[in-house]
């Protein structure tokens, strides 16, 4: 299958190369928690040192992602991805050599965070936006998102196995080598439109595009909704295991729940991409947040058992990252693809702020009240809020007033 224009990349090439790189990048990132115990124990650091590095990584991903998005829109994603892939490998190598918490914050935090920004959704979706026609975009974003989810699902047991058998140093070096091995796939993402450093002509400057987006109500609402997504996903991912333990469930129930979330997340993200081709995307987002609210309510108000945990994990897994392809496809539809990676970077920054708030507030409230109840209620209220604010989002392209010559 090929696009009609000779100036674009073939569909299968974008999907295969993009999906493998995203799954590797997302997969490595998802398993970092596995290094906490062995690394902090051997180096004599506190858990807060490791957690600080992970926090910095999330902020670095969000902030630097905006600037890498600008570069990808201007010079093409290929250069950004090569740089980011090398930075990822260097960051992992540096993490293996880290002799102090500051060094860990620089490598695992700043370097790996920036590298993730350049090897994941915003950049690859930019390539999809520029090379795949609008009628297939949401589906294609769903395929790449599902690949990212699969990477997360696969690399957790893989990383764990490596740490157990070859030690955490060597396991990091293997992952760094793995990142280098998938790097040649970026050659399949060299866009003809950016050949020879030539950038396609754009109607707007970066500043104009940013002003337009931030002045547009639907974009503001979309960003607010994505904040809720980040808040809920990270709160549940980080705090649910402790919640289950506090409720007297076996820790292995939490492990199985994690597996179910991972498995159903792959199906959910792919399905969301497919549905995005056939239904209004704002309604899909509204439905997603509504169902999150329903499932969270059932989970916390009904009696807790391993079965209820597994049902909740499967249901939440279906909704987990399924906002990603839909939200990104709306951004591309609203503003076009000229500044897409940068604008996606801004939307993703909102997601990361939500993630940070979710993990922080969960801990803060628990430390003060000895319970997660208030945060669970807040996640339900936020579901209602996000479901409502996505209703008026207009996914149609923005009408620009032509500037007189």
């Amino acid at each position: 299958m090929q696009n009609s224009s000779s100036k674009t990349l073939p569909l299968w090439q974008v999907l295969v190369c993009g999906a493998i790189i995203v799954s590797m990048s997302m997969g490595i990132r998802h398993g970092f928690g596995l290094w906490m115990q062995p690394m902090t124990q051997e180096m004599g650091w506190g858990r807060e040192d490791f957690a600080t590095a992970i926090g910095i990584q999330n902020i670095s991903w969000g902030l630097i992602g905006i600037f890498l998005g600008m570069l990808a829109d201007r010079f093409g994603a290929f250069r950004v991805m090569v740089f980011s892939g090398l930075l990822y490998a260097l960051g992992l190598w540096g993490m293996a050599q880290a002799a102090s918490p500051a060094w860990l914050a620089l490598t695992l935090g700043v370097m790996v965070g920036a590298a993730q920004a350049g090897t994941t959704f915003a950049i690859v979706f930019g390539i999809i936006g520029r090379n795949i026609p609008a009628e297939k975009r949401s589906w294609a974003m769903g395929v790449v998102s599902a690949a990212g989810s699969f990477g997360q699902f696969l690399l957790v047991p893989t990383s764990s196995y490596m740490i157990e058998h070859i030690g955490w140093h060597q396991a990091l070096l293997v992952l760094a080598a793995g990142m280098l091995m998938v790097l040649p796939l970026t050659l399949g993402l060299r866009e003809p439109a950016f050949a020879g450093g030539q950038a396609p002509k754009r109607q707007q400057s970066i500043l104009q595009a940013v002003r337009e987006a931030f002045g547009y109500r639907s974009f503001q609402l979309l960003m607010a909704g994505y904040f809720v997504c980040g808040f809920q996903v990270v709160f549940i991912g980080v705090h649910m295991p402790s919640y289950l333990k506090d409720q007297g469930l076996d820790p292995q129930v939490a492990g199985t729940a994690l597996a179910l979330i991972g498995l159903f997340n792959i199906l959910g993200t792919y399905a969301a991409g497919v549905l995005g081709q056939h239904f209004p995307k704002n309604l899909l987002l509204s439905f997603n947040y509504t169902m999150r609210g329903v499932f969270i309510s059932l989970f916390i108000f009904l009696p807790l058992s391993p079965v209820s945990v597994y049902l909740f994990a499967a249901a939440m897994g279906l909704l987990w990252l399924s906002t990603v392809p839909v939200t990104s496809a709306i951004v591309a539809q609203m503003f076009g693809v000229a500044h897409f990676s940068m604008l996606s970077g801004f939307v993703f920054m909102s997601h990361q702020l939500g993630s940070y708030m979710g993990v922080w507030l969960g801990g803060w409230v628990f430390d003060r009240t000895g319970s997660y109840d208030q945060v669970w209620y807040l996640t339900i209220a936020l579901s209602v809020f996000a479901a409502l604010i996505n209703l008026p989002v207009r996914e149609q392209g923005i009408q620009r007033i032509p500037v007189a010559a």
Partner: protein
Amino acid sequence: MNTIKHTLTKLLGPGLVSVVLLAVFFLYLQPAFLQVLANQIWGCL
């Protein structure tokens, strides 16, 4: 015959994906791995 072949070809992709996903899922369900996960990630044990 052609219909059967066509149906089988169409089912091959989803079938392979399902096999891979279930294989990884069963990796997670190994009691030893669940214990390692609980210990490594949350220090639960």
